[in-house]
C-alpha cells in the first residue's frame, strides 16, 4: 500500500529553497513517481504563496505555485465538516501554541492516516493524547 505524506508550509518552502535538503528532495521525488501519496490543504499553499511573495514578489509566487502544482500530483484535501470539527477542537485545546493552519493540518493527518512532514519543532512537546497519536517526520531549516 502507498504511504500517505502530508506536507506543511515549512517543508514546501524547504523544497523551493536553494539549499533544499536531500531528505526533502527525496520525498518530493517519491511523490512525483507516485511511490508516496502527497497530501496538502489549500491554506498551506496560501502560506507558501505568501512567503514567496514576501521574498520575491507576486509574479514569482504565481509561477512557483503553478509549477509546483502542475508537476507534482498532490491531493488537495477537502475541508469538510469532519476536518472543521477536529481542527476546531485542537484549536480550543492548544490556542496558545498552534495556529489555525497547524490545527487543520494535524486534524487532516489524523483523519486521513497521513504522516505529518513538518518543520514545526514543538508538535510532540505539546501535551495531549491526540498529538501523541500523530505520526511525524521532522525537518530542519
Amino acid at each position: 500500500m502507498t504511504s500517505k505524506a502530508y506536507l506543511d508550509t515549512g517543508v514546501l518552502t524547504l523544497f523551493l529553497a536553494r539549499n533544499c535538503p536531500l531528505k526533502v528532495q527525496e520525498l518530493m521525488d517519491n511523490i512525483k513517481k507516485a511511490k508516496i501519496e502527497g497530501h496538502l490543504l489549500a491554506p498551506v499553499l496560501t502560506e507558501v504563496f505568501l512567503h514567496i511573495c514576501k521574498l520575491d514578489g507576486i509574479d514569482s509566487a504565481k509561477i512557483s505555485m503553478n509549477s509546483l502544482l502542475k508537476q507534482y500530483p498532490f491531493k488537495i484535501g477537502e475541508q469538510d465538516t469532519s476536518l472543521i470539527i477536529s481542527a476546531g477542537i485542537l484549536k480550543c485545546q492548544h490556542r496558545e501554541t498552534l495556529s489555525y493552519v497547524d490545527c487543520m493540518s494535524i486534524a487532516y493527518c489524523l483523519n486521513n492516516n497521513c504522516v505529518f512532514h513538518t518543520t514545526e519543532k514543538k508538535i510532540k512537546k505539546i501535551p495531549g493524547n491526540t498529538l501523541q497519536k500523530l505520526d511525524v517526520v521532522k525537518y530542519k531549516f
Partner: protein
Amino acid sequence: MAESKPILINKKGMITIPVDLRVKYRMLPGSRVSIIEVNGHLEIIPIVDIAELRKHDAEDFEKSIEESNKQELALEHDE
C-alpha cells in the same frame, strides 16, 4: 507595458501570442503554461522546472515563516 494588436480567436479557441511578448516572457517553443482565471480575468502562468525557482536560502524562508507566525499569534491575542 507591452500591448498587442487585437488577436483573432480561431474555431478551436486558439490564439497566437505576439512574438515580442513571447520573447519578453521567455515563452520558447515546447514550454508549458497554464491559463488560470484570477479575480475575473485570465492569466497565462508559466510552468517551470523547480530548480529554476530556487532563488532563496532555507534560512530566508525560515525568517519569513517565524515573522508571520508571530504576527498571526499577536493578532489573535489582540482580538
